[in-house]
């Protein structure tokens, strides 16, 4: 029972915090005579989060330090270390992955409910409002999964290992960025009980300033999630710059590390914009400000600010996915990564371009016509660096002896799916076609081809690939293949079929639709339920293998990068002997290249050549 004490204490402190914040707020609104409810929730929530963080262990591990007192970090321990504020990056990685798998499954169930509603044209399961709340919740929960599973989960676990570090640059900030996630999930799950929010995850005003309290909970949750994202990005940039092992020059970084660096730059600078957008909505709600309503205010302000984050955000999702995909393709092709330097340049170009394409979401919004042409061209330019990433994948696969294990199958799935996602994106970047396709199921299908077909497949590739390292056990290969086969086929049926009602104009975000779209939607719904069931072998495989699986060797894939050169799972300090990097990470087929040797180097050995 003692293991659950930090969580219990966190909950109690959160309750106390809420009472304090709500009390302060009531005092103020009593004086000013304003409506008390929403300010009370905002201020109560802020204090509740502080209470929660202190309760789960931040006070012991960090807070005492602010007053010049000694702290107790205690990173070791059994399974109970996963249930408290722990600063070991491997523990935090597992905390992220397991929490987000739960969110993924919940949001998947919401998708099933939506497909049940959409199986025929009338209303079956939901009222219009509850359908829209379900759709919005599915959206924001999956966005959280897509942003944080690779960046918070896998890169937390493997990135310090890959660069030969003992931990990230700021272990306590790292723990903080995980522990603000539980309040996000709690708020999102509470929001349907408070009237829900029917705005979609994009929360466009003026609707989002008028929703019931459930909408406010969602906006607070999104803001909190942004804090996690910003701190995570800062931590990874600092880690990659300062924590590399001797000899780990920039040209020797595994490609996954480069992709995380690129995504971190975006999450560090762009996330602030959506935070400001949400803050404006909250201010309009509780202070009656007029950002989005006349005179002066304009709803387009929110759309610009929102997409200035949310378009780059898809690159926070997809860049580390590309990194993991290329990593796996190189190791399982037994070939050096093709055009490594060009891929790094492509990542840099994607980061730069990602900030100047946001207004392609606004072609039908009434934004100035003069902006249409430039944003169309800039958006289409981004297919050049993305194409380089694909050429690198294909060049690496070219004439190689593939080891067709489950991680590679999923990585190849990314190549296939994202090609469709990329090609259909051209129609949405092009003004003339976008005006017809905007807000139809074509957009929904395109988005799911890039993020689900691209990133979620890459998450599964990464999950199978690093499973032996993370758990110290092997997964079941046959069950993994069954999972891949079912998921790949049913996924493609679901979303290819979804393009068809989209091209003939079926609106998204509706619970009812004209009967002529019924047959196509029934196919989509049946395939979607199959897709949902295809995760069952995966869940069984993961749980069963983690508990009873065969012990994994240290390097089951004969891979060259550093995370495979330590034990599975790695010790607390990551490496028993210090790694010194001596060559390229992908020296397959070249006897003279060794990525690293191990030994005890001098304490401040300078990195070679950078």
């Amino acid at each position, binding site marked *: 029972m003692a293991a659950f004490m930090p969580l219990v204490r966190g909950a109690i402190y959160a309750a106390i915090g809420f009472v304090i914040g709500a009390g302060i707020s009531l005092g103020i609104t009593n004086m000013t005579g304003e409506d008390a409810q929403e300010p009370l929730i905002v201020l109560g929530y802020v204090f509740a989060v502080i209470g929660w963080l202190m309760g789960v262990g931040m006070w012991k591990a960090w807070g005492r330090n602010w007053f010049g007192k000694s702290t107790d970090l205690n990173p070791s321990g059994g399974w109970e270390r996963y249930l408290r504020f722990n600063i070991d990056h491997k523990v935090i990685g597992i905390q992220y992955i397991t929490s987000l798998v739960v969110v993924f499954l919940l949001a998947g169930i919401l998708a099933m409910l939506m497909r049940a509603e959409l199986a025929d044209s009338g209303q079956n399961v939901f009222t219009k409002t509850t359908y829209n709340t379900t759709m919005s919740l599915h959206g924001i929960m999956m966005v959280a999964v897509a942003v944080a599973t690779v960046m918070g989960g896998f890169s937390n676990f493997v990135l310090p290992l890959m660069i030969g*570090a*003992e931990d990230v640059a700021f272990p306590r900030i790292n723990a903080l960025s995980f522990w603000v996630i539980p309040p996000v999930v709690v708020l999102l799950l509470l929001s349907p009980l408070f009237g829900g929010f029917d705005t979609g995850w994009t929360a466009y005003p003026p609707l989002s300033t008028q929703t019931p309290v459930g909408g406010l909970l969602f906006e607070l949750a999104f803001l909190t999630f942004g804090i996690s994202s910003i701190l995570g*990005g800062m931590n990874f940039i600092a880690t990659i710059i300062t924590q590399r092992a001797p000899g780990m020059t920039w040209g020797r970084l595994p490609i996954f590390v480069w992709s995380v660096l690129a995504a971190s730059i975006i999450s560090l600078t762009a996330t*602030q914009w959506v935070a*400001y957008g949400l803050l404006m909505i909250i201010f309009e709600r509780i202070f*009656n400000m007029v950002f989005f309503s006349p005179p002066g205010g304009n709803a387009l302000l929110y759309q610009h600010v929102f997409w200035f984050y949310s378009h780059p955000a898809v690159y926070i999702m997809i860049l580390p996915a590309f990194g993991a995909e290329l990593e796996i393709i190189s190791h399982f092709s037994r070939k050096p990564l093709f055009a490594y330097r060009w891929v790094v340049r492509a990542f840099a170009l994607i980061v730069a371009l990602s900030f100047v394409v946001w207004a392609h979401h606004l072609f039908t919004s009434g934004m100035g016509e003069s902006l249409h042409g430039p944003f169309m061209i800039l958006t289409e330019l981004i297919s050049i660096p993305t194409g380089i990433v694909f050429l690198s994948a294909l060049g690496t696969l070219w004439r190689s002896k593939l080891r067709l294990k489950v991680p590679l199958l999923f990585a190849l799935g990314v190549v296939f799916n994202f090609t469709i996602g990329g090609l259909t994106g051209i129609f949405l970047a092009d003004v003339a076609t976008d005006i017809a396709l905007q807000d139809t199921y074509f957009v929904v299908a395109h988005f799911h081809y890039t993020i689900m077909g691209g990133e979620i497949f890459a998450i599964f590739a990464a999950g199978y690939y690093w499973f032996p390292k993370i758990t110290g056990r092997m997964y079941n290969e046959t069950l993994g293949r069954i999972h891949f086969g079912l998921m790949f086929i049913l996924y493609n049926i679901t979303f290819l079929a979804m393009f068809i009602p989209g091209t003939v104009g079926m609106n998204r975000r509706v619970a009812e639709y004209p009967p002529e779209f019924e047959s196509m939607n029934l196919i989509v719904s049946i395939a979607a339920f199959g897709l949902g069931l295809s995760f069952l072998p995966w869940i069984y495989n993961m749980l069963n293998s983690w508990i009873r699986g065969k012990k994994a060797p240290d390097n089951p894939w004969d891979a060259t990068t550093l995370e495979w050169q330590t034990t599975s799972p790695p010790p607390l300090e990551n490496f028993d002997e210090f790694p010194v990097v001596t060559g390229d990470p992908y020296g397959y087929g070249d006897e003279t290249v060794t990525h690293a040797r191990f030994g005890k180097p001098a304490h401040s050995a300078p*990195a070679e050549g950078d």
Partner: protein
Amino acid sequence: MTHEHAPRVNHRFDPLTINRLGLWLFLVSDASFFIALLSSRFFVVGTSTPEEVAQVLGLSLTILLLLSSLTAYRAEAAAEHGDVHGAKRMLLATMAMGIIFVFGVGFEWHEAFKHFPPSTAFGTVLFTLTGVHVTHVLTGVLTLGFVYFRVRNTDSIGDNQWAVEGAVKWWHFVDVAWVFIYPTLYLLK
């Protein structure tokens, strides 16, 4: 800040450099928040500034904040030279000016409510810009307060060197943010 559980290191950066880098990255991040903030001023009210804006008060607040940056700098310099008493004096002076600034903004809000409440376009911009900034000032005062609390009973700076430097850098950042907010809010025609 780093490696409490790892007595060994396998890289060539000292903790001070790592802390500085982390803080600078955070400043870059927060600066992009202020850019978003400033851009909304132009979107909502263009470049127009009402007559009733308290120009004298705005200028006084700006001068006060710039002076507080000077004392903050003196605190950091004193800490660097091991002059812990000088550092304490200057930290106190900085915090005092910060608190006066907060009250100044409070007085400004009191006046602004009469001319442009938050439900008007210019009021929206004014209360948001000054409100977000004054929240930053409060965090600055709080951080300086923590640092002061840690060195108050000691005769040497000891391992609080970075605490002083970090808090002062944060204070400078908050000041620089105001240097952009002030002309954007008060001086445009």
